[in-house]
């Protein structure tokens, strides 16, 4: 394992410190406990959005703190959900009185820690609404699993709910928008390599030179099954078909197509996947109205990608287009 780090135990602290220095115009970094808030928060009268989760998915979540998106991000240890003692002060720091939305990726750890934090924040008089993101079609949502994971679609939820909050929607309304995105977004991912958690020092899983892992999450955990390496077009179908199936996308519908890199895959390859995905959507008569291609929800240096599709309507498209100004996503200002 070779990493540009000093000490596995200080990775998150030092990285977030550097992040804060590089984006001092946009964010303030709190330490002990560690969390990141939007400069000038709380924004008077505005519903605040707080998200968080294990580190190692950068730019998620801290990279999305700023105008039109998150008010605070709470980074846990690498691949480990943050704890209530971080989430509570982050929630308090950004609450303007209009209430706070917790955007939580559906993992047992995140759910339990955010649940506890929400209870305690509410006991302190803050109105908290939690929205669970569970867009991963690789996992069956059944009694026999912890339910679908929250993966790439999270960034779309954060952007669109953030725009709703910025335009002044109420707590319930913002939560409703976020839940609408969750209902209409699905994702599936593939890994060409594992990734190495700094404190573990060995890869999360090993793939032979001719193997890939289909249906991965974003924590370096193995996926649903392992298959022989295929061409990008074939892999794209394997990811996109179940996504479209599950969403029930029909001819004439408008979508946002999001090809997300897992951290170690060149942008050029993401565009090769995007090309085929857009072709498949066109073949089905769907209209790709908006696109996002890049490394937004990563698993350290893992090679691979995920494909997300979000069913759009005029409202969601307008919220997607609304100005956003964060370290990792910026337009319109």
């Amino acid at each position: 394992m070779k990493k540009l780090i000093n000490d596995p135990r200080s990775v998150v602290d030092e990285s977030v410190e550097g992040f804060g220095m590089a984006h001092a115009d946009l964010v303030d970094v709190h330490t002990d406990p560690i969390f990141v808030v939007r400069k000038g928060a709380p924004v008077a009268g505005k519903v605040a959005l707080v998200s968080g989760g294990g580190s190692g998915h950068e730019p998620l979540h801290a990279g999305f703190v700023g105008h039109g998106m998150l008010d605070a991000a709470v980074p846990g240890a690498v691949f480990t959900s943050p704890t209530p003692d971080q989430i509570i002060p982050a929630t308090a720091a950004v609450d303007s009185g209009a209430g706070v939305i917790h955007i939580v990726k559906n993992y047992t750890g995140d759910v339990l820690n955010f649940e506890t934090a929400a209870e305690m924040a509410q006991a302190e008089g803050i109105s908290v609404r939690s929205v669970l993101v569970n867009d991963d079609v690789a996992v069956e949502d059944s009694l026999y699993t912890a339910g679908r994971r929250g993966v790439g679609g999270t960034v779309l939820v954060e952007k669109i709910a953030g725009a709703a909050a910025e335009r002044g929607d109420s707590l319930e309304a913002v939560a409703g928008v976020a839940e609408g995105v969750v209902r209409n977004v699905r994702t599936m991912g593939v890994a060409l390599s594992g990734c190495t958690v700094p404190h573990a020092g060995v890869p999360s899983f090993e793939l032979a030179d001719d193997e890939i892992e289909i249906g991965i999450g974003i924590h370096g955990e193995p996926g649903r099954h392992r298959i022989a390496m295929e061409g990008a077009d074939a892999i794209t179908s394997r990811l996109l078909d179940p996504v479209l199936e599950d969403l029930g996308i029909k001819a004439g519908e408008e979508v946002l197509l999001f090809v997300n890199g897992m951290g170690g895959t060149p942008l050029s390859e993401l565009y090769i996947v995007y090309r085929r995905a857009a072709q498949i959507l066109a073949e089905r008569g769907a209209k790709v109205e908006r696109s996002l291609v890049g490394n937004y929800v990563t698993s350290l240096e893992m090679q691979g990608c995920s494909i997300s599709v979000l069913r759009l309507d005029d409202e969601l498209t307008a919220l997607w287009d609304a100005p956003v100004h964060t370290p990792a996503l910026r337009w319109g200002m």
Partner: protein
Amino acid sequence: MTVGLGVEWAVEWLTLSARLMAEHREELIALDRAIGDSDHGENMDRGFQAVMEKLAQTPPETPGAALKLAAMALMSKVGGAAGPLYGTAYLRAATALGENADIDAAALAGALTAARDGIVARGKAELGDKTMVDAWSPAVEAADEVLVAGGDAVAVLAAAAEAAEVGAVTTDPLVARKGRASYLGERSAGHRDPGAASSALLLRAAATAAGFPEGSAE
């Protein structure tokens, strides 16, 4: 011996726990790597280091206070699924023990039950879901049996530790239905659940701290 266990026992339990988590850190990481995300050993080690710091800062006066302090440290430093689950377990156990300075077998069995119930209340896992519940539930049952048979606090803990270790082993063939390992479906079979393994270690520490010969429960 019918003499109960005091705060020294509780502190010793936590101290031994911290040592075991440090010693078994890599093993727990390896278990979690197989069916999870490679952090369980790191999380538990970090959490119990925090417990030790807190113990040094504010030495507790009762066993309940010691466990409450541990609960708070675990809740705020472990993170992941295990943090809130262990945090709840230790908090419920502490509440069950109340302010008593001296814990007898019945109080102990009650605290173990409360801990297990706390884990179930939070995590909603059932026996056989391949989680730490598979260590805690047999432990609670064994403790109750010993209690009914008239055993003392040490015997209760010894039985709980032994049953937890057996319980952890029984998770090996199971297909996970809760937590991160459940995403793997059938592929989760053939690996021990890391949380069950750490639970067995923690209960072994409890027995050892009470004077039960170390390792004999294995």
